């Protein structure tokens, strides 16, 4: 079998260049900027804070509210502002990918508000958003079971590849994004578009897990960079 050459010269199991920084916003309680290749995601966290209207409050826990937005200038064709079916669904799965990592019972009647803005989009925006959101939550000092990491993998011309870029998304047999808690070894997001066999599916997931472990190191480094400077361990 000939080896598949990726159009950007990466190895099959190599992610695009990753940059992560926390504490990038002045007014948010926690924030993070994550770029993976040309995709750039910004996340801001507020709270836990009082939730209004009060009928939305849960008496025994905090709620997590999550909003995913693409900036109008983030893609080739302008994105129309306001919620779309796609962004509504991504907001929901993102929230459900992060909730398992939080101790919401510690903050009854409050809300943790999470805003994700995709500043530039070139594939993998939901996964970049989750990576940024998880960092922002940690940066806000909110206790977590584990950091949530997220990446997609696929299969192109018979080869399993990680972190698809825009061109590769057109070529792949499947696009399978996951979110994963590396220390807990648990999946918190699974979606898939495409058509592959059960065996392929398992292998693609295993490859994505490897990518998540790499991202985990980047996340830890980003947090240490800010917080060790300010005298925390």
């Amino acid at each position, binding site marked *: 079998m000939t080896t598949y050459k990726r159009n950007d010269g990466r190895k099959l199991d190599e992610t695009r260049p990753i940059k992560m920084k926390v504490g990038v916003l002045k007014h948010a309680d926690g924030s993070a900027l994550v770029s993976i290749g040309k995709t750039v995601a910004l996340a801001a966290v507020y709270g836990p804070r009082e939730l209004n209207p009060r009928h939305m409050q849960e008496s025994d826990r905090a709620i997590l509210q999550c909003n995913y937005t693409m900036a109008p200038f983030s893609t080739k064709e302008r994105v129309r502002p306001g919620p779309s079916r796609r962004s509504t*669904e991504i907001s929901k799965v993102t929230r*459900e990918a992060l909730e398992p990592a939080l101790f919401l019972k510690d903050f009854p009647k409050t809300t943790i508000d999470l805003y994700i803005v995709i500043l530039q989009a070139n594939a993998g925006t939901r996964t970049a958003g989750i990576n940024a959101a998880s960092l922002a939550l940690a940066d806000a000092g909110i206790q977590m079971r584990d950091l949530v990491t997220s990446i997609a993998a696929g299969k192109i011309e018979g080869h399993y590849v990680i972190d698809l870029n825009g061109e590769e998304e057109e070529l792949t047999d499947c696009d399978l994004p996951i979110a994963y808690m590396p220390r807990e*070894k648990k*999946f918190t997001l699974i*979606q898939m578009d495409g058509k592959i*066999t*059960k065996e392929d599916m*398992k292998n693609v997931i295993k490859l994505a897990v490897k990518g998540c472990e790499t991202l985990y190191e980047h996340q830890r480094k980003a947090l240490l960079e800010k917080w060790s400077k300010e005298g925390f361990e």
Partner: protein
Amino acid sequence: MNIQTSYIISHLSKGMRLDGRKPDEHRKIEIEIGPIEQAEGSARVKLGGTEVIAGVKLEVKEPFSDTPNEGVLMVNTELSPVASPEFELGPPRETAIELARIVDRGIRESHCINTEKLCIKVGEKVWMVMVDIQPLSHEGNLIDASGIAAIAALMTAKMVKYDEAGDKVIYEKTDESVPLDDIPVPVTFGIIDGKLIVDPTLEEEESMDGRLTITTNEAGDVCAMQKGGACSLTFELIEQAAEMSIKKGKEIRELIRQSL
């Protein structure tokens, strides 16, 4: 944990469910073809006490600029108050949108609709296949009921005529079917106490930690997946679900065929 949840979990540890089913058993599935004469294709599906109608309508539209020679598929769901006192009027919220998108993804990614055959004039006119799902009764697992209804409706849908000169659709059914090459079937699992239950009821949905939907096709390939709910799951559980969804999907596909 409330009493109902602990009750469900304690029964599940003995392999039992409240309605007497086994963990890998669906409720009774009934499929009625063509209840809506006006629609190009329709199906009414009962999954125990859950009931939905799916209808297919065809329209002629301009294709998307990136696929000028392909017809367009759209799946839409509205959770109307007729199906449950929990549903409210108004624009679709995230539950309805997610439901429609899970069904949509299964159909789209299996490539069961031959969209190139739906092209009338490249770059100008293509058929748009609209699948609308109307739940009539919500007693859990709207996803599978909707997915089965949608594909059954598509399988029986007939093309209508298009008057090119007058640029309008003449809603007279022809003998030609909507071009379909595959039968994707979604199977949804409730995840509760680290275990999988097929086709959760409303009671089980209220108690479960989350769900996983896997859509498979005729060849036994996986064509879409979606996890829902604030839970986390292990690799082994995903593996187990994939295995079961292929087996269950096959049974349901047979049932759809028999109903035609």
